[in-house]
């Protein structure tokens, strides 16, 4: 919330001043929107370029790669039984040939500074370019294809988990905030420490219990091998394979999230205007809807939006534990292989999503929260 409120000026209480004339508001909104768009775009450019620099350790990765290429070329030549016994000059020549081919392929013969600009241009234009080492599951070198093949699996698993978790916890939190101090409330508070362990940790246990011991659910993967022919069976198989990872994600954070929301709602429930509403004898559902949910809506929307785009990056360890073919594992492979275009490709999309979401949120705030005003406004 502080991130958002820092860039919004003129926030006032529910009974703020009179609005300006419509043309003036439009001008202000347009001006503000333009500034925000430019600022966010610049942020994306700087962020992506920093990612390029970090992913390449400021160019040091070139040295690592060249050393690895030489090592691999030497190994290849050493393993070639036909080359045994040749003069060393010929063997060196052969190694140099292999090294040169690979250096040219990866364009390491161009200075990193120049290549970094190519990475940046490819990224910002969303052409994303070609991967340097990785291929997509179906064998393509196009970064776009590599990401797109993994996206559905990630979206399916994490969006399902996220939506379940988000809406489920909000309703439970609201429920508990009305029953502060009840047994259920205390039980949830007591279970909050379980969220200290990451979801993959629960995943390992769930696999042990339900796959290894009880043998009722699969160990992992997205679908039965070989995948069923019919769409219905395929879908059912995917659902079955989702049970354990979704459960792991849920168990890993459900209690902390409920606790967090429940505390949040409790704070808002203690506001003077809520007390006033209670004094006026309004029904609890009206109070909840108008006086608690409405003012907390910007926070809920912000959390929801940012959480939703966070799905993009997947989860490295959880996907590995459940052998789930998602973006998290892909990113891990890309980082391990120093495949800059793939890393940048994933990051730039995230950056654009984030910038766009932030941009959109500014507008949404103005719509849902009457206290938010754009630009300077004189009180009448």
């Amino acid at each position: 919330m502080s991130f958002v409120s820092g860039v919004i000026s003129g926030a006032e209480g529910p009974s703020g001043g009179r609005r300006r004339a419509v043309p003036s508001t439009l001008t202000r909104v347009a001006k503000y929107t333009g500034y925000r768009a430019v600022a966010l775009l610049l942020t994306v450019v700087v962020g992506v370029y920093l990612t390029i620099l970090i992913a390449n350790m400021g160019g040091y990765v070139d040295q690592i790669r060249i050393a690895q290429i030489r090592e691999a070329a030497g190994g290849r030549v050493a393993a070639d039984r036909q080359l045994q016994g040749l003069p060393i000059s010929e063997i060196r020549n052969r190694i140099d040939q292999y090294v040169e081919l690979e250096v040219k392929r990866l364009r390491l013969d161009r200075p990193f500074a120049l290549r970094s600009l190519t990475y940046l241009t490819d990224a910002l234009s969303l052409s994303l370019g070609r991967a340097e080492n990785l291929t997509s599951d179906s064998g393509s070198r196009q970064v776009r294809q590599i990401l797109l093949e993994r996206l559905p699996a990630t979206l399916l698993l994490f969006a399902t988990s996220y939506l379940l978790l988000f809406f489920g916890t909000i309703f439970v939190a609201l429920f508990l905030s009305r029953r502060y101090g009840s047994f259920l409330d205390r039980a949830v508070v007591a279970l909050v420490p379980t969220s200290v362990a990451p979801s993959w940790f629960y995943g390992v246990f769930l696999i042990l219990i339900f796959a290894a011991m009880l043998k009722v659910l699969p160990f992992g993967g997205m679908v039965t091998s070989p995948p069923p022919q019919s769409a219905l069976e395929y879908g059912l198989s995917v659902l079955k394979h989702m049970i354990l990872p979704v459960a792991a994600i849920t168990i890993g954070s459900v209690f902390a999230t409920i606790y967090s929301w429940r505390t949040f709602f409790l704070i808002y429930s203690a506001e003077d205007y809520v007390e006033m509403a209670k004094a006026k004898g309004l029904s609890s559902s009206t109070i909840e809807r108008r006086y608690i949910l409405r003012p907390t809506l910007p926070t809920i929307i912000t959390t929801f939006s940012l959480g939703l785009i966070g799905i993009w990056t997947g989860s490295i360890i959880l996907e590995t534990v459940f052998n789930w073919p998602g973006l998290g594992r892909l990113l891990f492979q890309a980082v391990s292989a120093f495949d800059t275009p793939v890393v940048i490709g994933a990051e730039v999309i995230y950056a654009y999503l984030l910038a766009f979401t932030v941009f959109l949120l500014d507008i949404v705030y103005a719509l849902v929260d009457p206290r938010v005003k754009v630009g300077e406004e004189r009180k009448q």
Partner: protein
Amino acid sequence: MKVFFQLPAIPSGLKARSTYLIAVLIFMLIFNLACVPKTSPEAQPGAKVTGLADKVIFVEEPDSAKAVRMIEAGDMDVYASGLTDAELVRRIKSSSVMGSETSYGLNFELTLNPVGPTFPGTGKLNPFYVPAIREALNWLVDRGHIAEEIFGGLAVPRYFALSSAFPDYARLAAIARAQEIKYAPSLAKARAVIDEEMKKLGAVMVAGKWNYKGAPVELIFLIRTEDKRRDVGDYVATLLEESGFVVNRQYKRAAEASPIWIGSDPAVGRWNLYTGGWVSTIINRDQAGNFNFYYTPRGRPEMLWQAYTPAPELDRIADTLDRRDYKTWEEREQLMADALQLSMKDSVRIWLVDTVNVWPRRAELALASDLAGGISGSWLWPYTLRFTDKKGGTVRFGSPSILTEPWNPVAGTNWIFDVMVSRGTLETATLPDPFTGLLWPNRVKSAEVYVQEGLPVTRTHDWLSLSFVPSIQVPPDAWIDWDPVAQRFRTVGEVHPEGLKARTKTVVRYVDDLYQRHWHDGTKMSVADLVVGLALGFDRANSKSAIFDEAEVPSFQTFIRYFRGARIVQEDPLVAEVYGDLTYPDAEWIADSAAGYFYSTVPWHTLAIGIIPEKNHELAFSSSKADRLKVEWMSYIAGPSLPILERSRVQALNEGFIPYPNVVGKYVNAEQAKERYTALGEWYQKRGHFWVSNGPFYVESIHPVEKTIVLQRSEEHLTVDARWLAFTKPGIAEVKVSGPAQVRIGANARFQVDVTLNGKPYAAKDIDFVKFLLFAARGELVQTGDAESVRDGQWRVTLTPEQTASLQAGANRLEVAVVSRLVSIPSFESVTFVTLPR
């Protein structure tokens, strides 16, 4: 494989039905057991077996611990990755439902920086400049401790540049054993040498630490962290610290360490020692070049290797062995023995252990695993994969990675896990023995190898003959070069009108039914399939060709350096002659190399549909060319390549395209070409890919995102040669030595050596040799000799009165080394006896 039963009519009445059902069940059980293929080392030539696995489902599972649990739970049958985790291996070994295979291809060592005595870059002292200090590390480290404690028993000590699981070690077993005893761990000995040499360097011991010019002697130790080398590094670092050095432990992953140890000038002094590791995925039968590779500047061009200054004698021997510049096998053995000892004196690297990798599987599953490459390195798995308790069935094969890179038959993926799967779909001319590395004929009937006199080549198997001849003239009609413009081969007569000689000639006779076999798309093999590969190889490496690929040039240069011509002598049955200058110590390898020239695992028409987009720069066979042209790397099995390949197929069908018409066109006409493209089109419609070959399995379906490949046994491979089943279990000899507990000096002494395999006598014909080593009371080697064969499974060592007279009173040890012809791993056993005065 499917077997259908015709059941008789069911008798009426419950009791009768029960009896009937029991009878049927018993019958089915007996039938099933009868159909289950048994391991049959003595299988008659040409004998066939049925009942191998019908279907194989490959799935990706990167987590080895989970894979083991899946095997235990019955969700997976075999995992294609060698495990080195002692806890997991204990779990496998103690399970009644799991079995395992073993491989030995990976080893670890300490790479030492030999620059010095001080680093020009830092001025700091480098003790490893001194060969004696390097040699002393052999006494300092306890390889047995590393193998047993750090690797939990999943490693065996290694002292030399020769793998303890490969044939050269077995051949030199007696000498190697003596050296191993000489370099047995001895802290006192190691420290005595280090103390003496450090003082010579001008270092002084101050408060338990060596100081040089007023500062402690620091060793920068690059310790790899991805595997057990982290623990090995810590262990060695502690030993060095206890010996008076300050050790700067730098923990690094491969990518971080690589620019330092191999990518930088060792004279800069950024490191003193490094935990190195090397891997071999095949059984290397000729490791003679290892001394040149590991100990001399000729090994590699990197600056580290250029810093090596081997003793002149080691340098000369290593060079001689590398060039195979010896006349006889005996001469080679002597050179190897000398190199073994001299390399220990040099010790620019301290060999530590050969690791033992364990490959888990279900107990009821059997398959051939390679002693070096394990299951993923095995060529014979498709010919041996079966359940021992039932016929047929589906095997679920887990693999750490699947579909890692695009598959194409020219320059596609070479990832071991992809290659392992694709091997199941190919039928090669020869197949490597997973236990010895020698080649066995598969689609070859016999071969005649002619070698120029004076070259040290031997033959083991009788499917080929070996003859030595004064000189070998290459016939003028043999193909030797390629004309990319005319798209035809040039002959030896054209290129070398003065005549051409070769060092070897191999006549390969292929099986009689070669052209009766079908490709997976139903088309029949023809001569056209066998010649297209050679033309394509020449064409891709020629800069004037429309499909030139510069990435092909280095390997082609190697090929052309030794290639002296090839020709088809007879088309049906196919007989081909191959001439070359490359020789190997084993004639089997020469024959194997020759057999591949006129043999193909891919039909010409599937290559043709790749040649078209390669020419049009729409796709590229190699990764390098694809990246250069910014097109897709060609994949015959999935992805964006498939529509392009399909378009090429349609174009080829419409045009009756025949690649290299001056070569292939002699064996195929336009009508036959259209039939082939039509069959391929039907295959693509049915299977969704273009991966067509002739192996035991075909690719039934591919699921890239789900990381699953399904292979189905081909109709033509429902029966396989029974001889392959013998390669399911390595025949590592079990040895027991017995004899008198007391021997009087100057008297005869006889010891019995029992050599068995699975409790049965080991056939004498399968034993290469049984040697004995006699160690006196103080551990010095006093005698070596050969044991004599008594009968199958029994050998005798006789110590003559002269030999016992050379012993002094006390406890002595007789060690026996048994080397089998069936497996490259030698077996050792010893017995202790006491000598009494005369």
